[in-house]
């Protein structure tokens, strides 16, 4: 399940960025970029919490 979610996340991340590159090359129009990026965003935030672990980075609070 986590592996599948991870794959979906990376595809969603690509969907957030790649359409802009396709727009740059004239392959798709601006509206397509916006809608694809939105879909990628929604899918990213649904799928990523499934596999992304809790953060255990260094504390920065109160110096």
């Amino acid at each position, binding site marked *: 399940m986590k592996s599948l979610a991870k794959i979906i996340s990376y595809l969603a*991340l690509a969907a957030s960025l790649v359409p*802009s590159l396709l727009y740059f090359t004239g392959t798709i129009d601006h509206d397509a970029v916006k809608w694809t990026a939105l879909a990628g*965003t929604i899918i990213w935030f649904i799928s990523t919490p499934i596999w992304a672990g809790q953060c255990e980075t260094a*504390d920065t*609070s109160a110096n």
Partner: protein
Amino acid sequence: MTTDNQSTQVNEYEREPVPPKAHLGAGKFWGMYAGEHAAGTEFMIGPLFLAAGASIQDLIFGLLLGNILAVLTWRYLVTPIAIGKRLTLYYQLERIAGGSLTKCYNVVNGVLFCFLAGAMITVSASAVGVPFNIHYTVPEATFGFGAPSFTGLVVVVGVIIAVVAAAGYQAVARVANIAAPWMIAIFAACGVVSLVQMEATSFAALSEGKYWSDAIAFVQEKEGVQAFPFWQIVAFAWLCNGAMHFGMADLSIFRFARSASSGWAPSIGMFLGHYMGWICAALLLAAQIKLSQDHSANPGALAWGALGWTGIICVVIAGWTTANPTIYRAGLAFQGVMPTCSRKTMTLVAGAVATIAGAFPNLSAQLLGFVGTYGTILGPMGAVVFVDYYLMKKIGLRDDYAVRVGSSVNLAALVAWLLPVSIGLYLIFAKGIFAAYAVIPAWLACGVIYLALSKLTQKPVPA
């Protein structure tokens, strides 16, 4: 991004060296810095470069050099001390400068955090306002309000952020960690879309840079001629995080590093956020100018123009995930001087201060100057830490002097901090120098003064 300081199950080693069992591999730091520096501030700072008249060539090469210098400062100034002592900045300062002076420093830090968080509340509010047709406009006066509807929106956004921060920010930290890679992708997408909107899609068009120079000309026609030259860009990029590296705040992060190589981790934040992110955010403004002859650096509107709802979501999350831990840290700093008050109460106080600051749009519009001032005020104390670590014993003086003599205020540290800072603030506000220029001179002066005054005032202490 950070651990929740409120958790009592996790030992944060706040008053002891971090033991080897708690040391972290380099990967943790790379992830943290990527998220920390591709954030809400980038949406504000990037467009301000263009608005200030920076040329695209100066921006590309100036940011490159400045960010390299910032990374080297983290790696070679901060990391060795962090690994050597493995203590938080707060605890080191307490031992060197005294508990009372450290509390004072922390309160100043907290107040500055509130202003930074206020700017981020403005950023988020600018995005929330777009679908409701509530516009973000910058009044002439520094302490002038924007439109009443925008002020009301800032209050609503600020209250929500403050209440969430008071509840303990772990949930938001998780959102921030999840959002970080996506946010970096969105920044890049914004930049690419902006280039297309300006018809800069060929190598010739990109290298000629007319899309940029036209935007500069438009702004200068409206606002008057300004310049933001190469070395000013270098200074800004290097020293915008002066409190973190020169000021040694990131000792608190790198004390967990297993090896010094973790000190290279800020490079991901610098080059993805402070290089790519700033340039892409600036391109958003250039595109807006071309499309609608509007040079207002409204982060929400800029992102909307490029990526629609995705842009709005990104700006909201970027501002929120920066404001939230900043308000949390400010609350902890205030609680440090009022220990009878709960962390929740002081976090709400910090949130209230931040919200009030956020209601003045001109403060966030002056972010370029603010971060330099921030570094000038807080950065010099890092010189005290540097001198204490490397030089005190070498010249026959005692390190950690305040704890050795039981003093709550090390006068040498107090004077060494306040004197350069006062002069720096005078030069910034009375003489109008670019704030980031004051950071390094103030740091050097602080170190020299601390060394000299320590030599004059230290009493013999048993070994």
